[in-house]
């Protein structure tokens, strides 16, 4: 072959940017995040800052589901907010009915999962912008149901302390409980990251990508488009609903009016800004979209922080069209260049 030199170059540059040992990366990231639970007790960080981290991770879980759709399957949903709402309000309703936490979560996931399957069915018929808007319909319908059906309480359902395994009671109004809740969220985030990685690196991940990038070849290779659309949508709704359950567990309150299109768009923004198909990138996306404005911008800029959040989204997309996760590559390159320069100087 006369293209060998180029091939090597391709091999180097074309590598999936998850790094060599992604699972280790996830472990490391979540381990560091776990420390956030401790810092406030040492007086190094405010508890409310930990809460911001908690919501960032909750949104990460939701956005990971969106990445399965958007990044791997080339599908889109504008109804995500409806499903986060389903998780939160569903927990509210079931917990108020006195169901144990685990059962309530299971039921909520089951219901939302079947709704996701319904969308999957739909997606076989409807494509591109029509699909996007069909999901927007579903989001809108859910939103209207939440605000009009009396069992959702009109404005909100107050959940209060949650009971795990019937014994451990966690009430977010106590700081130490908040830390435990936060740690649990990080744990779930870690699990979700690992499971997602395994999923997309398997036959299913390949099938999802083939389905969206080369539908005909996929069919010829025996990939059943319906089955994988269902898989994609069910997974995404389960993640979104799971995020909603975490939200309800941490916030211990389930508002009915919060689940607007805007939330769904922000979730998509997390994926886009962070990086399609990248798990770490999705987390970075959530940090940029939710974390940074709440951690820094608001304190620094006050009321115009909202404008800057918008500017931030636009800038990151302009400079990192493939996702902010590629900042890692840039940093590494800079570092290498710096090292080289340093060596040269040393000589």
């Amino acid at each position, binding site marked *: 072959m006369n293209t060998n030199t180029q091939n090597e170059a391709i091999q180097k540059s074309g590598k999936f940017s998850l790094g060599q040992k992604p699972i280790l990366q996830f472990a490391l990231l979540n381990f560091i995040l776990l420390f956030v639970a401790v810092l406030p007790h040492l007086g190094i960080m405010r*508890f409310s800052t930990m809460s911001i981290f908690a*919501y960032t991770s909750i949104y990460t879980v939701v956005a990971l589901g969106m990445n399965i759709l958007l990044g791997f399957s080339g599908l889109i949903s504008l109804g995500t907010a409806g499903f986060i709402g389903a998780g939160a309000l569903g927990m509210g309703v079931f917990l108020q009915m006195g169901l144990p936490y685990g059962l309530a979560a299971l039921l909520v996931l089951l219901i939302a999962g079947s709704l996701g399957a319904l969308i999957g069915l739909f997606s076989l018929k409807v494509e591109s912008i029509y699909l996007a808007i069909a999901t927007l319909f579903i989001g809108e319908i859910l939103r209207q149901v939440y605000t009009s059906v009396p069992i959702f309480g009109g*404005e909100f359902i107050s959940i209060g302390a949650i009971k795990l395994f019937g014994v451990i009671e966690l009430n977010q109004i106590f700081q130490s409980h908040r830390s435990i809740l936060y740690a649990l969220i990080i744990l779930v985030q870690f699990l979700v990251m690992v499971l997602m990685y395994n999923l997309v690196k398997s036959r299913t991940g390949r099938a999802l990508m083939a389905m969206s990038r080369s539908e005909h070849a996929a069919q010829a290779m025996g990939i059943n488009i319906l089955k994988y659309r269902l898989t994609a949508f069910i997974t995404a709704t389960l993640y979104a609903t799971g995020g909603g359950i975490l939200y309800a567990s941490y916030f211990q*309150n389930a508002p009915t009016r*919060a689940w607007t299109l805007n939330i769904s768009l922000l979730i998509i923004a997390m994926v886009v800004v962070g990086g399609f198909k990248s798990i770490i990138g999705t987390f970075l996306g959530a940090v940029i979209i939710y974390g940074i404005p709440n951690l820094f911008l608001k304190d620094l800029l006050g*009321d115009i922080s*909202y404008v800057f959040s918008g500017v931030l989204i636009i800038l990151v997309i302009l400079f990192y069209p493939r996702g902010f996760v590629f900042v890692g590559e840039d940093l590494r390159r800079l570092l290498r260049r710096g090292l080289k320069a340093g060596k040269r100087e040393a000589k």
Partner: protein
Amino acid sequence: NGTGEGGAAQGVTDSTVLVGNAAATSGALAAVGVPFNQGIEAYFSMVNQAGGVAGRTIEWVHYDDEFDGAQGLTYSQRLVEDDQIFAFVGHFGTPTVAATQEYLDTVGIPRVYYATGLRALFDLKAEGGARASFPVQPIYDAEGEVMVARAVADFGAQKIGVIYPNADDGKGLLAGIELRAGSLGVDIVASQVAPDANDMSSAAQTILSEDVDVVLVAANQVPAEVAIKALAAAGNQAPVITSYVNAAPTFVEGVQEALNSFDVYANAWLQVVDNDGNPTEALQEFESQVGEIDPALAGNPYAQAGWIAAAVFVQGLERVGNAPLTWENYIAAMEEAPVSIPLGGSVNFADGRRVGTQAMSLLKASYDDGPVWTVDQPLEPITEILD
């Protein structure tokens, strides 16, 4: 947490007292949150310039919660735990107030004035930490009752139409309306609308087809305006009464075309003109103070609300005077006698009574050279209107 024994509470030093709130000051609800906070700041700076209260100046901190309850809770916790404020002044918005109620009750920190009519604030006999809660604005249920009482007493209505959005405000008002209508034995024709609808013509037609004597527009701001426009388009002629929230000049401007077909009234818990139609002293003071920030704020009802929130809080401070500034003492001071509301009547917190202001007037909208609300019925205690 909270109160140090005998000594001062958190947020209190010899020369300062720190208070704050979390409010929506960005995004769509900035239109409410920004002037509201400016009203608060205007009052505090007036007090501070006059040397503060009992030797302490008032410091003020606020966070933007984007009208999101989760952020509202996070920032409220920051205010309590990290910034260690003495009290919330002007706790803002249904989502945040709803999400923080349990937490703040547990902490027992004083909250003076809620910028919402959230029904859950209504409490005839508050105890424990809930006693630190001091709602000032009317609560929707109570105002709903007033609406019906007015319709019957002042307009002799037998059959009353109601347009209400499917939200806490609409539902609260409706609950009050139904309660009072039941006891007065009048008929109600209620039509529900979506709070964000741009077109309420079908609701308007439903009401009109029933031939009602008075229409109650049980809604806030934009939906109320949309509803009144829809009523005009549908050919309504019956008088309309709407919520106190709408008793602002800009609202009249919005519905001015409708005034050709029927009269529009609004409840008001504030009285900014005296019986001769001249601006009250309280109003002049308010206008001159906020005018320093932005002259446009003078007619802004949200700025007025913020102003009131700060004023009510300061009255409590003044009552504590030189006694140790603790939560206990503050709560006792607030309960000890009715607190007067600048631009309005007064509010009585005695014996754990937490029901908001108890006096309302009736205003009538007109538009000649500009938008005006004129006093149709003076400020009366709710109990008297209801009789």
